């Protein structure tokens, strides 16, 4: 009977397991190195990162692997085609998908959906993780839960660690809120780092309905291994503003009333971590060397031509390593073949690639030297990274957290200070790493002579984080970043907002003073109003709903429109800053995106000229201390002007009455005045 046969065939087809590997992280944390090579091809313990993912997939009995390639797609394609995974002995079929336009995980997922490759539940992994998870158990758990809960669309594999575990990324800490009974994920929230600042996770009690007990986990390593149902790409397609897998997708699913889909967590004790910052790069390298991730370790020789052998005390050596008699190789060290190490040199907790020439009397501590580099005599490397084909002269100091990109030359007796990154060719900060950056090589960017010396080659890479005021963001991505004792300090009172101080005073000095009581009310209003607007922004409420909520709040708290404007503007600007800080959009795009959509809110908050002036003044004050505040202010004002929220007259009035120290706005005002004159002339 032919029909029956067909049916069987279909069943067989359904059982093949597909894996989608996101080769791009859509982040810039490994700049400037990622301007030359994609993150997943950077070597970790002398093996390109993607190999760890592929080994995992091979063990997981995956049948088909698709690589979503974006930045440096050609390099990845070439690598895959030439690797053992493309040979006939490969356990799975590999295919690279060029999705060059993608700018986020969300874009890649939408592209995936468009291509219609997905046939069943698939495994979604990023190309930069290291794990020894037993995948069959995860799949079993996924299927068991699927049988019980048909709305189950994704299982996230999470590893148990501690809050400040070294392999846990400190760059994007996040808490998972899970049902204690079955590990159903109820909520996901990225949280601020443990810096003693007061903040909170706000959970809508509706989400918690029917849940007796839930756990709040801030001790899980999220290595982005997910089993997803075919619904997942489709949901990305429907919600075209989803960018991130966790922040947007998971949170969106969980807080959506309409979708009614569920996501579960699978918590494992196995090793799993993602190389997503220098800090985790360091931690994972050390873990591999110390065999925590067994069987993932150098002597597993993932690459066909590798010949590492284990020599006790976690020292690994390939064939043809030439060690001088008096050199000292400490614990947790791996050295690639044809590398020469000179007399009296000390190496510990470090990885050195192939064909390196390490001179005499050098100290290498906790550092990573990739292939073909030359290190001169008497040099000291401490927590440093030296990429391939670098030349480091004699008596050089590479201080903690310093990074030398590909093809950098540092001449004799130079000092590369802490957290300085140097690249072989000029790379502009903030440029997304998924751009081919050859075009950025311009003549007027001078070589960083201060660091590399007169005859050196290298350009200073200015991380987009380095010039922000936000101290926390800078060390997060340093190799040296180590979380000290939990700084839940009492000093934090000093750093909390003025409101907090006010409030504290109220508590201690007076209990029933009328004046302070109103203060308190304002503060409540502000907090709530900001929360309302932020919610509206995040969940994309429609304008009317947001307006209604704000209005109700205003009336119930009996505050003036001034406060409403202040709170609204504060929240909107916060959103803009968020976009800028995360590097998703530049100042203009971010301001356009937020204000073009939401400025209409002010139409119901601003009624006469006086209030328009007031609005502008609030904007002026609020942007003053922000990063790129001057530009933002200009964009905001021009949007207000275009949308006729403020009139020309009010802008001029405001500009003349208030002290505006902003050259952009000055130009704008000048233009306005001229335009006015023009029109007057015309009318004359």
């Amino acid at each position, binding site marked *: 009977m032919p029909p029956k046969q067909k049916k069987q065939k279909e069943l067989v087809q359904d059982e093949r397991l597909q894996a989608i590997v996101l080769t791009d992280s859509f982040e810039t944390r490994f700049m400037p190195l990622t301007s030359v090579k994609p993150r997943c091809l950077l070597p970790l313990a002398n093996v390109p990162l993607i190999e760890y993912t592929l080994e995992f997939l091979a063990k997981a009995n995956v049948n088909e692997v698709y690589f979503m390639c974006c930045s440096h797609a050609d390099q990845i394609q070439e690598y895959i085609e030439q690797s053992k995974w493309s040979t006939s002995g490969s356990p799975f079929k590999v295919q690279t998908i060029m999705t060059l336009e993608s700018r986020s995980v969300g874009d890649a997922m939408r592209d995936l959906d468009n291509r219609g490759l997905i046939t069943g539940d698939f495994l979604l992994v990023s190309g930069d993780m290291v794990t020894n998870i037993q995948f069959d158990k995860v799949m079993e758990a996924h299927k068991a839960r699927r049988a019980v809960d048909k709305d189950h669309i994704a299982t996230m594999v999470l590893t148990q660690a*501690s*809050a400040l575990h070294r392999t846990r990324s400190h760059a994007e800490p996040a*808490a998972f809120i899970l049902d*204690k009974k079955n590990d159903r994920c109820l909520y996901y929230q990225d*949280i*601020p780092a*443990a810096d*003693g600042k*007061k*903040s*909170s*996770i*706000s*959970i*809508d*009690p509706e989400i*918690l309905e029917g*849940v*007796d*007990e*839930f*756990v*709040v*986990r*801030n*001790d899980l390593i999220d290595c982005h291994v997910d089993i997803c149902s075919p619904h997942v790409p489709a949901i990305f397609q429907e919600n075209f503003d989803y960018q991130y897998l966790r922040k947007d997708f998971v949170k969106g699913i969980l807080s959506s009333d309409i979708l009614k889909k569920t996501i579960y967590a699978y918590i494992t004790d196995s090793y799993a971590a993602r190389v997503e910052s220098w800090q985790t790069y360091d931690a994972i390298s050390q873990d591999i060397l110390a065999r925590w991730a067994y069987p993932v370790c150098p002597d597993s020789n993932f690459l066909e031509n590798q010949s590492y052998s284990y020599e006790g005390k976690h020292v690994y050596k390939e064939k043809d390593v030439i060690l001088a008699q008096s050199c000292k190789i400490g614990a947790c060290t791996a050295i690639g073949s044809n590398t020469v190490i000179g007399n009296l040199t000390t190496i510990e907790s470090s990885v050195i690639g192939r064909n390196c020439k390490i001179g005499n009397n050098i100290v290498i501590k906790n550092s990573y030297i990739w292939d073909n580099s030359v290190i001169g005599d008497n040099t000291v490397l401490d927590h440093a990274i030296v990429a391939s084909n670098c030349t480091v002269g004699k008596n050089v100091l590479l201080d903690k957290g310093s990074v030398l990109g590909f093809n950098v030359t540092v001449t004799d007796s130079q000092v590369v200070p802490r957290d300085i990154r140097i690249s072989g060719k000029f790379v502009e900060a903030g440029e997304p790493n998924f751009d081919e950056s050859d075009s950025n090589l311009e003549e007027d960017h001078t070589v960083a002579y201060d660091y590399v010396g007169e005859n050196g080659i290298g350009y200073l890479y200015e991380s987009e984080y380095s010039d922000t005021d936000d101290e926390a963001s800078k060390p997060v991505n340093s190799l040296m970043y180590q979380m000290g*004792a*939990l*700084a*839940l*300090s*009492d000093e*934090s*009172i000093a750093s*909390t907002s003025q*409101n*907090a101080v006010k*409030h*504290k005073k109220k*508590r*201690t000095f007076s209990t029933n003073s009328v004046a302070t009581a109103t203060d308190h009310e304002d503060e409540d209003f502000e907090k*709530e109003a900001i*929360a309302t607007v932020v919610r509206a922004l995040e969940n994309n409420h429609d304008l009317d709903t947001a307006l209604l909520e704000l209005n109700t709040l205003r009336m119930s708290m009996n505050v003036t429109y001034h406060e409403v404007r202040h709170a609204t503007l504060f929240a909107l600007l916060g959103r803009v800053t968020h976009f800028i800080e995360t590097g998703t959009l530049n100042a203009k795009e971010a301001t356009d995106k937020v204000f073009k959509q939401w400025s209409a809110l002010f139409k119901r908050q601003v009624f006469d000229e006086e209030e328009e002036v007031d609005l502008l003044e609030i904007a002026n004050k609020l942007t003053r201390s922000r990063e790129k505040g001057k530009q933002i202010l200009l964009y905001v004002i021009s949007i207000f002007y275009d949308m006729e929220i403020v009139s020309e007259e009010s802008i001029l009035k405001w500009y003349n009455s208030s002290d505006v120290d902003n050259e952009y706005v000055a130009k704008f005002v000048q233009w306005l005045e001229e335009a006015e004159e023009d029109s007057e002339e015309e009318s004359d």
Partner: protein
Amino acid sequence: MEFHAVICCGKGTGLSPFSTVRESGIPKALLPIGNKPMIEYVLEWCDQAPFRAITVVSDSESNAAIEELLEKYRSKRSKEALVCPIGTVKFDGDATGEILEEFIQDIENAGDFVLLPCDFITDLPPQVLIEEYRNRDDEDIAMSVHYLNKFDSIDKKNLTHYYTAYSEDQHLLDIYSKDSVEQSKFLELRTQMIWRFPNCTVSTKLLDSFIYFFSQAAISIIKKYIGEYKNQSITKMVRDLARRSWRHSDQLGGISLFTLPKQCNFIRADNIPAYIESNRYIMKLKAKEQQQPAQAKEKGAATVGADSVVGENTQLGERTSVKKTVVGKNCIIGNRCRLTGCVLLDNITLQDDVVLENCVIGQGATVNSKARLTNCNIEGGYIVNKAFQAKGETLTNLFIAGQESETDSDDDDSEEYDSYEDDFDDDFEDDGLFER
């Protein structure tokens, strides 16, 4: 013997209209469970320990009545056993936080003390709690006792008041009241807490037993800040003590959390369904104990189930059946009445053919013939009309039924008391408490 027990007798807001919240009511501590004032169960439980001393805290209105009861209780106590002195303290504040202020001076150097509610019944011996407290971590300064509701008939709505956050190693971290969460529309978990205790559980089913053990260290901290708690509840004070464990850079001693084992029964008669349930629980125990063969009874006489109790001087009419019901003293029950799962306080008159199911009838109330009530609460002194039928209603006196009122009550009914679960102002800012 190292503990000083403090029994707090509340107003009984949850037990309205039978408590002194209403004029016709009687003090909560004296409301009978199985025809015995509820506080006696607590006193008996304390005497199992025994404690160093017991102090009963009540408002001045109820004080006299409680004194009277204590007098009786003292004489009932066995003479040989070690017994501790029982004292009373009058307290007329609005919030429980003030209770401690009354006598914190006296207990300051006297050792640990334990705070008890006046409304719990349990088969768990106090030694279990005391041992648990003694075995706490050295740095812990207090212990808070929680329980899970085991009685299905008590509606969840009447119980769940809190989100209780606790750590993996059973320490209380934070408490949020459901009301405040509903008000602010969000449950706000502090990230500070999540960093210090990265794997914590938040429960909605854990119930606060209002049993707290405080160490000397806790007392001296409380003493320092007692002024702050003038208008706050003890629960809030405990919450602030619990927050100490994560809101400071040095880890300060926290509060250990003990959840009562599943095997034991624990019930707090602080709302009406729980009050009915606790009566049934006592009846069940009694029925188990007696196990006596059914006596041959006269024909036509009233039947009283083994799981029921009828008080002194109460007359039961012919062919009346009483099941799972407690009938108080000096009641007159007419013929052919059917009482199932009810609690009748003292001096109640039921005329013929009354059918009551799951009702609580206050003192001196009258139910005229052929009335049929299900799940109703009848305030003391209320007169139910003939053949009246109702389901799930609370019938209260609209006007002051002076002559009917049997209570030794007072004229001051205007005082609006906050319940013990008074609202938390879930403020975010560090309120400067407990800092060092």
